């Protein structure tokens, strides 16, 4: 029994790495999503082109390949990353590309009359975006951001391929050391599921708080 608890300790260490990757990857994804998503609706052709190229490239190539590039190919260009850095970079850029389309769609979903009110009140383009459009668009983005975050959480398992000791990696270690398949794989299943639940719950809470007052019922 003490042996099992030791192995469980290993798995929990892996869970910490997975959480770390998810959090840092999400932050990078969020930054990229807003940069590229707002870039897609820019007035300037060059910014739109850059944003589109980024999005299409990272949606169109596999996360495995992106991770291998970040970890194995970038050193040839003189940029050596730790496994964690490479993992965060690949995950953040990949999920950020999907989330950028969410940002763009949400910005476009805000009615034309809101943009016109901004013009009539003489708000600048950026002021209108910052104080009127984005706060309303954010509410539209949230549910899909929740999906993206869960996707990112599950995608973190690819880092086990560059020998980063995340949850999946540790499960393999425990399996090969104990010969037991059920226990490690059941543990990681439950842990991934629990983490995904926490994300869902967090997003729903945020959504409720932000929607407060908007429909005149929940105040």
């Amino acid at each position: 029994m003490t042996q099992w608890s030791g192995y469980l300790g290993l798995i929990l260490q892996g869970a910490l790495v997975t959480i770390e990757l998810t959090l840092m990857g999400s932050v990078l994804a969020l930054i990229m999503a807003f940069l590229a998503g707002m870039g897609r609706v820019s007035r300037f052709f060059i910014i739109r082109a850059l944003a589109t190229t980024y999005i299409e490239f990272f949606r169109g190539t596999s996360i495995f390949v992106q991770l291998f590039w970040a970890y194995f190919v970038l050193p040839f260009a003189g940029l050596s990353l730790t496994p964690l850095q490479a993992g965060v970079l690949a995950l953040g850029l990949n999920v950020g590309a999907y989330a950028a389309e969410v940002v763009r769609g949400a910005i476009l979903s805000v009615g034309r009359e809101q943009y016109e009110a901004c013009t009539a009140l003489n708000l600048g383009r950026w002021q209108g975006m910052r104080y009127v459009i984005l706060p309303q668009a954010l509410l539209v983005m949230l549910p899909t951001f929740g999906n993206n975050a869960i996707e990112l959480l599950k995608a973190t398992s690819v880092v086990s391929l560059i020998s980063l000791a995340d949850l999946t990696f540790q499960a393999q270690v425990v399996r090969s050391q104990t010969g037991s398949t059920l226990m490690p794989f059941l543990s990681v299943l439950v842990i991934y599921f629990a983490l995904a639940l926490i994300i869902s719950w967090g997003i729903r809470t945020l959504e409720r708080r932000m929607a407060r007052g908007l429909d005149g019922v929940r105040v």
Partner: protein
Amino acid sequence: MPAPIIKVDAISKSFGAFKVLDGLSMQVMPGEKLALIGPSGSGKTTILRILMTLEKIDGGHIQVDGEQLYHMERNGQLLPADERHLARMRQKIGMVFQLFNLFPHKCVMDNVTLAPMLTKGIARAAAEKRAMELLDMVGLADKAKAMPAQLSGGQKQRVAIARALALSPKIMLFDEVTSALDPELVEEVLNVMRKLAAETDMTMLLVTHEMGFAHDFADRVLFFDRGRIVEEGKPDEIFRHPKQERTQSFLKKIIAAGHRV
């Protein structure tokens, strides 16, 4: 005789193949209250939207308060206006929309104070003090903390009026501001506009289907049809003794539809 505050000169505007304004010209004197009436698609709303810079023009010139709206004079040449010029010109003009266009995520107070704080750099305390005066004027001082979704249509429209007034424009544009309201709420909005007309010397242009209100409110009525002004004159002339056949048939239809003139 003072100079006109708005001079529209041969403005044309098409949406695709549809010519909505066809060489339209008109002048508005400072402080004048103008009612724009006419069938839908006649261009009356479009000219308001053009004055608010919500549409681009295809040709012609507009002068507002002595300056070109869509052009800048540089070294004696007229160039297309840039965003900075437009922003400066917009300070002179405010607009109230048919569907209110309040910011749903901001309370009434923040709706009114947002633009003065951002565009004029007014401090929050001063902006809120002014907002309270305006909300009081439109009879909604007790709703300052309410969210737009908690208000009736008439209340929303009065907030929208206060919000536009907070920027102290010289010219106010009202685009069918009662058309989306339940009949019993129309009067509270019209009352605010009457008060505004009585208490300020703002120039006011209103597009409306409320012929009775247009008759009492306006100094001058313009009848639009197919992108042109077909007839204009004092309310009594237009409503009681229209000269043009098209004006007569339009008013006949409106009366048949149950509107009071």
